């Protein structure tokens, strides 16, 4: 690469898209809400033992206006579905969604008329985390997958 060879040592080059994605992936603000038992694992994930702060996503925002990551932690009942949808709609762009656990991903063991059979029926999901409930490590991996996705899609993927 021509330009990089001529620069003195200690100077790195990047693109605007990469820089923005890098900033985004390392400061995710999850939305503070839990739907079922998966939420307990989610709480453990950002507490001291598993320390989600290492991935820059430990500050959960209680308002969708300040959040850009939705972690659907638990089963979504039909009564809750419009609320989940509204919360997603009110989140600031760009936004990502993790479907945490079997219930959120496909209904899990609740194969009945009260539970939405997968939250992807109401909102677009980026990453599915399997488990019943997933361990905090699994959720952390899910967040890392979201970070990978943010890095890959770049600024053009989200600024449509």
């Amino acid at each position: 690469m021509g330009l990089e060879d001529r620069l003195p040592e200690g100077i790195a080059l990047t693109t605007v898209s990469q820089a923005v994605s890098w900033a985004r992936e390392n400061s995710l603000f999850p939305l503070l809400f839990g739907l079922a038992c998966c939420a307990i694992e989610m709480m453990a994930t950002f507490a001291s033992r598993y320390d989600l702060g290492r991935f820059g996503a430990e500050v959960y925002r209680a308002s969708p206006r300040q959040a850009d990551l939705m972690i659907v932690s638990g089963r979504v009942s039909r009564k809750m579905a419009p609320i989940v949808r509204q919360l997603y709609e009110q989140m600031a762009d760009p936004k990502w969604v993790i479907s945490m656990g079997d219930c959120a991903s496909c209904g899990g063991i609740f194969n009945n008329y009260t539970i939405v059979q997968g939250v992807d029926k109401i909102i677009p999901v980026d990453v599915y985390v399997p488990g019943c409930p997933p361990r905090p490590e699994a959720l952390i991996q899910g967040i890392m997958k979201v970070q990978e996705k943010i890095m890959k899609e770049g600024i053009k993927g989200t600024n449509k």
Partner: protein
Amino acid sequence: MTPVDYLPLLIMIVTAIIFAALALMVSALLGPRRPTHRKLMPYESGNIVSDTDPGRRRFPVKFYLIAMLFTIFDVEVAFFYPWAVVFRQLKVFGFQVMLLFVAVLLIGFFYLWKKGAFEWD
């Protein structure tokens, strides 16, 4: 100290202002803005509220009574805490004063009891 010695401070202030302005400008330029009707709606914990919702609905007056009772006994407990801290210094006098205070509240308590304020139905 001469004014020149404060130069680093000035540089720091100017750098901070430039950095803050730059960060705001960059996020304004690069961040997507997609306001939708639902995004601009009032946030009610995800509940969908109508734009024409009066917001002043009627609810049973019993809740008002419960709230008033709570306030009274909450304030009582709030007085207990500092009193408990200096309980030993105040000796018998503090105890007497607190007994008087509780007695006054108990008069109200029995009045409410007799009036049936603690019965929900």
